C-alpha cells in the first residue's frame, strides 16, 4: 500500500515529491547552469569570450539529450523512465535553443560590431553555427500544443530539422574548436543509438521467422 492510498489527502512528503517531479521544477533545473554562468559573468569572474564555450556546450548537451529519447524508446521499447523523459523532451529541446540563443548573444557582445562578425561569417566554424541556430528557430517556435495542432502531420516533418541542426552543431564545434575530441565525445551516444535503432529495424524487416539452429528453411 502506498502513502497516497493510505491517506485520503496528500501528505507533505507526497506534496514535495510531486513538486520535485513537476515540469516547472524540471525547467528550474535546466536554468541552473545558465544562472551560474550569468552570475559569473556579471560578477566579472568570467570573460565574455569565455561564456561562449559553456553556453554552446550546454546547448549541445540538451539537444543531444532531447534527441536520444525517441531512438532509445525505439531500441529499448517503452520504459517508465523513458516515458518520464519523453514528457520532458520539449523542455530539453526548447532549453537547448535558449542556451544556443545565449551563445549567440555572448558572441555578439564579444565581437562588439557587425563588421567583425561579417568578416568571419565564411569561416567553416562560424557559418555552420549560424545555420544550426537558424534551423533550431522554427523547431523552438513550434514546440507548443497549438503549433502541433495547427501543423498536423507537417509538424513531425518540420521537427526532423533537428537532424541537420545536430550535424551542423557537431561540425561547428569541431571546426571552431580546432579539435574533434570534445565534440565527438558528446555526439557519440547519439550516433550509437541511431546505429542500434537502424540495426534493430533491419533485423525486424529482413529476419524471416526464426528456425532452430542449423536448420535451413
Amino acid at each position, binding site marked *: 500500500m502506498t502513502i497516497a492510498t493510505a491517506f485520503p489527502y496528500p501528505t507533505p512528503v507526497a506534496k514535495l515529491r510531486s513538486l520535485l517531479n513537476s515540469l516547472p521544477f524540471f525547467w528550474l533545473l535546466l536554468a541552473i547552469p545558465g544562472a551560474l554562468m550569468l552570475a559569473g559573468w556579471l560578477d566579472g569572474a568570467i*570573460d565574455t*569570450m569565455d561564456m561562449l564555450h559553456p553556453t554552446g556546450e550546454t546547448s549541445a*548537451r540538451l539537444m543531444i539529450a532531447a534527441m536520444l529519447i525517441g531512438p*532509445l524508446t525505439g*531500441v*529499448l521499447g517503452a520504459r517508465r523512465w523513458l516515458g518520464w523523459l519523453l514528457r520532458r523532451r520539449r523542455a530539453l529541446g526548447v532549453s537547448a535553443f535558449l542556451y544556443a540563443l545565449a551563445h549567440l548573444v555572448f558572441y555578439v557582445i564579444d*565581437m562588439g560590431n557587425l563588421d*567583425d562578425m561579417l*568578416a*568571419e561569417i565564411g*569561416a*567553416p*566554424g*562560424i557559418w555552420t553555427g549560424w545555420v544550426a541556430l537558424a534551423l533550431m528557430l522554427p523547431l523552438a517556435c513550434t514546440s507548443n500544443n497549438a503549433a502541433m495542432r495547427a501543423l498536423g502531420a507537417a509538424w513531425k516533418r518540420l521537427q526532423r530539422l533537428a537532424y541537420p541542426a545536430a550535424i551542423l552543431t557537431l561540425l561547428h564545434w569541431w*571546426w*571552431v*574548436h*580546432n*579539435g574533434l*575530441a*570534445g565534440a565527438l*565525445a*558528446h555526439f*557519440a*551516444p547519439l550516433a*550509437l*543509438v541511431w*546505429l*542500434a*535503432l537502424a*540495426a*534493430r529495424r533491419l*533485423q525486424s524487416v529482413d*529476419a524471416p521467422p526464426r528456425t532452430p539452429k542449423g536448420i535451413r528453411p
Partner: protein
Amino acid sequence: MTKLPLAALALAVAATAGLSAPAHATGAIKCDAGPQSGWKSREALESKLTKDGWQVRKSKVDGGCYEVYGTTPEGDRVEAYFHPVTFEKLYVARRGQVLFRAKGY
C-alpha cells in the same frame, strides 16, 4: 538478438561518462621552449604586439606556447600562438580556420 543494441547502449553510456573530462587546451600547436623560467613574460609579448599594431584581448599559456586572442594590425579577429622565448609568430587562426602557420609547426 538484443545484444547489438545493448552493446551500443553500453558504449553510449561509457562515452557519456567520458564527457566530463575537461578539454580546455585547444592545443592547436605545441612549443618545446624549455622550462618556464627561461621564458620571456606574457606582458612583454602583449606590449610588443600592441606596439606592432595588435589589439590584445586576452593571452594565456597553451601547449607550451603563448596564445593570444586579439585583432591583427590588418583588422582580423584571430587566435594566435607565439614562441614564449623568441616571440616568433607560429600560428594564426580565425575561428579554427588557419590563416598562418610557421614552418615546422
